[in-house]
């Protein structure tokens, strides 16, 4: 009964999505406010019914209702409760349902926080999101119904893919989807603006907090995915340039570009066409990512069921949504006009170059990801594009980008002087180079050109972010505590995010340069030394998990005779899906991780063992967390809330943003 309610709720949600997608759009075109008024209740109702559907599926998992095909495929009576709940999005159908849930949740949020927008614009935004939702719900009901039944009911389920039974995977997909799908808000704003012909600074200002919020989720989602790979795949890597990873990274890069170009559009009225195109592209890449993951056109470690009918549907959906919006863009954009002018040396230029680098980076990743598909389609053979390609094209693009982190925020809008910038940044440059020379020597006792460059860049990003903040304090002409308090959150957000990039670069550099890895055979009682730590192997014993058997090794780690950690890596065999899984044991600290993974059992109780010493590896996740925190600060800047409250006006707003020379856009 409950699954039928779920399916019924989905059908009602589809009807509401149709209403929400069509009526307000027609109303905005014909100037009928009664039709436009449909948008909000339809969107909220749709959210409610998708929540009901999601709740029904979750319930089916909790009570082990194996008459539901999807539950049978992805659960088991021995599966612990938290994994039964995360199993709801562990397979194809459920992850689509999550997608739809997230989309309707964002739409619901838009109905809550957009009261100050002009009625027509608001109606169009909600309608566009409704149109996207129609596509997703139809996809689910037509090809991937999560509530499909199987009779007679099987006694036992086939269990969740063991790779997905990990705490990281409980939260990774929802975060990622919040990011992916959150880009639909910026997309809807862009389409609404193109339809209405009002691409102006106000549009940019309305879009900014939404884009930033989606970007925060995307950042955290990608970070969790990387953290999961590091923990669960058992060979110490954290990024593999796998097609599915790339699929999430491309919208992130374009979203990052969009955040920066929106700043220009809002403050200076420039780059309007470009910004609107980026908003379309960011969401298009999210959809493309969904297509790549769900259709099985590419080989990936993320094994999902391949079904050509589903692939064709998503491809059609993609064609309609992306193709339609790009045509709309081609039709409307020529009339938008280019906005404020600027000199070659200015903050606008710095941000333009930032955008070009980020978009080119996304394009090269797209090319590398799809290249095997292109060649295969042209009958030129099967190849795979691996990390060497991505490292070779991606890293060089990032070098000038990091350099711009230092320059851009200090450069004035419209026209800046090289001399002044050089004067302000001279000590930063000297300090960064000095650190690049010295830090590796103190950390690892050696240095190479690559490491020196990496640390210099990381230090440059970090120090210049602080210097930039100091410049704001200086310009405020107030005692520094009051000046600090007066700086808007947006600036703190930017500083925090740029600091995060510095931290991340330092982490990547030191981890990849100075990690020590050893693969060896260890019998019980054997000891070995790695980077000054002594690892003693105390053998393997059987342990039993709720739905798996594991052989658990014990390693005592000491340093100069003092106990550091006890590590217990496991080799698990899940009872139902019998493939062996590696569960690495990691002792983390701020400056290094010790990582032990069991390989294959050898003769007489000995095991193949992989040991890693990974300096600064936690910084790889600390950096993105700081970026996300920065995004959070920026998205919650009070000027957006001021704009949201229609009549609060813009008092003190422009004044608190010393760089803003543009006339403040009308709030409503």
């Amino acid at each position, binding site marked *: 009964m409950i699954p039928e309610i779920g399916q019924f709720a989905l059908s009602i949600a589809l009807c509401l999505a149709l209403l929400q997608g069509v009526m307000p759009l027609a109303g905005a075109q014909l100037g009928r406010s009664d039709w436009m008024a449909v948008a909000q209740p339809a969107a909220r109702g749709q959210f409610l019914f998708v929540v009901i559907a999601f709740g029904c599926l979750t319930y089916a998992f909790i009570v082990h209702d194996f008459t539901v095909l999807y539950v049978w495929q992805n659960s088991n009576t021995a599966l612990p409760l938290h994994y039964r709940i995360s199993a709801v999005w562990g397979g194809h159908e459920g992850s689509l349902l999550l997608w739809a849930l997230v989309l309707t949740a964002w739409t619901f949020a838009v109905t809550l926080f957009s009261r100050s927008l002009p009625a027509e614009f608001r109606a169009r935004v909600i309608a566009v999101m409704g149109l996207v939702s129609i596509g997703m719900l139809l996809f689910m009901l037509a090809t991937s119904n999560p509530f499909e039944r199987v009779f007679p009911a099987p006694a036992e389920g086939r269990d969740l893919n063991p790779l997905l039974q990990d705490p990281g995977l409980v939260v990774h997909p929802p975060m990622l989807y919040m990011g992916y799908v959150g880009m639909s808000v910026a997309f809807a704003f862009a389409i609404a603006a193109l339809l209405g012909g009002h691409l102006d600074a106000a549009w940019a200002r309305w879009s900014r907090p939404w884009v930033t919020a989606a970007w925060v989720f995307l950042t955290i989602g990608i970070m969790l995915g990387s953290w999961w790979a590091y923990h669960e795949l058992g060979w110490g890597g954290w990024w593999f340039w796998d097609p599915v990873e790339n699929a999430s990274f491309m919208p992130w890069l374009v979203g990052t570009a969009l955040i920066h170009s929106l700043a220009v559009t809002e403050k200076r009225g420039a780059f309007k*066409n470009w910004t609107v*195109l980026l908003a*379309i*592209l960011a969401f*298009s890449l999210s959809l493309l990512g969904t*297509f790549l993951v769900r*259709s*099985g*056109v*590419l*080989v990936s470690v993320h094994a999902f069921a*391949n079904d*050509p009918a589903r*692939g*064709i549907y998503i*491809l059609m959906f*993609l*064609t309609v949504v*992306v*193709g339609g919006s*790009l*045509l709309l*863009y*081609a*039709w409307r*954009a*020529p009339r938008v006009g280019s906005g404020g002018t600027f000199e070659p040396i200015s903050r606008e230029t710095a941000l333009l170059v930032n955008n070009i680098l980020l978009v080119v980076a996304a394009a090269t990743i797209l090319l590398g990801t*799809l290249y*095997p*598909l*292109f060649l*295969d*389609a042209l009958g030129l053979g*099967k190849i795979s594009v691996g990390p060497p390609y991505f490292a070779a094209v991606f890293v060089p693009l990032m070098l000038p980008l990091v350099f711009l982190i230092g320059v851009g925020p200090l450069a004035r809008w419209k026209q800046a002087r090289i001399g002044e910038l050089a004067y302000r940044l001279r000590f930063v440059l000297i300090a960064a180079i000095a650190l690049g020379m010295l830090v590796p020597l103190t950390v690892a006792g050696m240095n190479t050109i690559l490491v020196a460059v990496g640390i210099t860049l990381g230090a440059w990003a970090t120090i210049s972010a602080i210097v930039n903040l100091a410049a704001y304090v200086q310009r405020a002409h107030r005692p520094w505590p009051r000046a600090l308090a007066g700086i808007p959150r947006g600036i703190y957000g930017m500083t925090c995010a740029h600091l995060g990039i510095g931290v991340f670069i330092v982490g990547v550099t030191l981890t990849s340069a100075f990690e020590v890895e050893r693969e060896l055979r260890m019998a019980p009682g054997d000891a070995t030394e790695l980077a000054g730590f002594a690892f003693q192997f105390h053998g393997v014993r059987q342990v039993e998990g709720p739905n798996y058997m594991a052989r658990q090794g014990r390693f005592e780690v000491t340093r100069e005779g003092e106990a550091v950690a006890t590590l217990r890596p496991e080799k698990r*065999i899940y009872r*139902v*899906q*019998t*493939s*062996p899984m590696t569960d690495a044991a990691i002792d983390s600290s701020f400056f290094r991780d010790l990582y032990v993974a069991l390989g*294959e059992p050898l003769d007489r109780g000995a095991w193949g063992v992989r040991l890693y010493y990974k300096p600064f590896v936690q910084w790889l996740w600390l950096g993105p967390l700081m970026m996300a925190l920065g995004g959070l600060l920026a998205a919650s800047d009070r000027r957006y809330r001021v704009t949201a409250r229609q009549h609060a006006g813009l008092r003190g707003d422009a004044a608190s943003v010393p760089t803003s020379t543009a006339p403040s856009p009308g709030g409503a």
Partner: protein
Amino acid sequence: MIRYLLPATVFVVLVVFLAVGLNRDPTRVPSPLIDKPAPTFALPLLKNPDQTLTHRDLQGEVSLINVWASWCGGCYEEHPILVALARSHQVPIYGLNYKDQRAKAMEWLEEYGDPYAAIAFDENGRVAIDWGVYGAPETFVVDRQGIIRYKHIGPLTAEVVQDTILPLVSRLQDG
């Protein structure tokens, strides 16, 4: 206007490629070993470690080589098909027991039936590497001259056996 159509044009090209790509299976990597002599090997038998099975034993008769292990779920899935095929006596099936434990493998055969003419015990997977095995189960068809003619990755299904493997085997037996 033309300039603004560029993104849409690029997108159309992309969609064409994606559409073509949908109809191809990216996981089908042709094995470089097809139409090449089976790699040489000599392994102890699973049931009788004193005797060995070598590549020479595969010559003179068309045969199937099935890579399996007791820990492998896909092997469990395809096992009834192998047992039925063995009963029909159309073609001998040799097993390559892959990264397994002797006792567990024997137990497994006792429980589910033994379709194999002989089983080589490849404890550390070294021979499987030579054969280009990347996971169990995999099944090879080897002709009379000991040349690999076909490779199936993943569990055998009744359709694969009926439509592909048996026709190929009878062609090779006649030829």
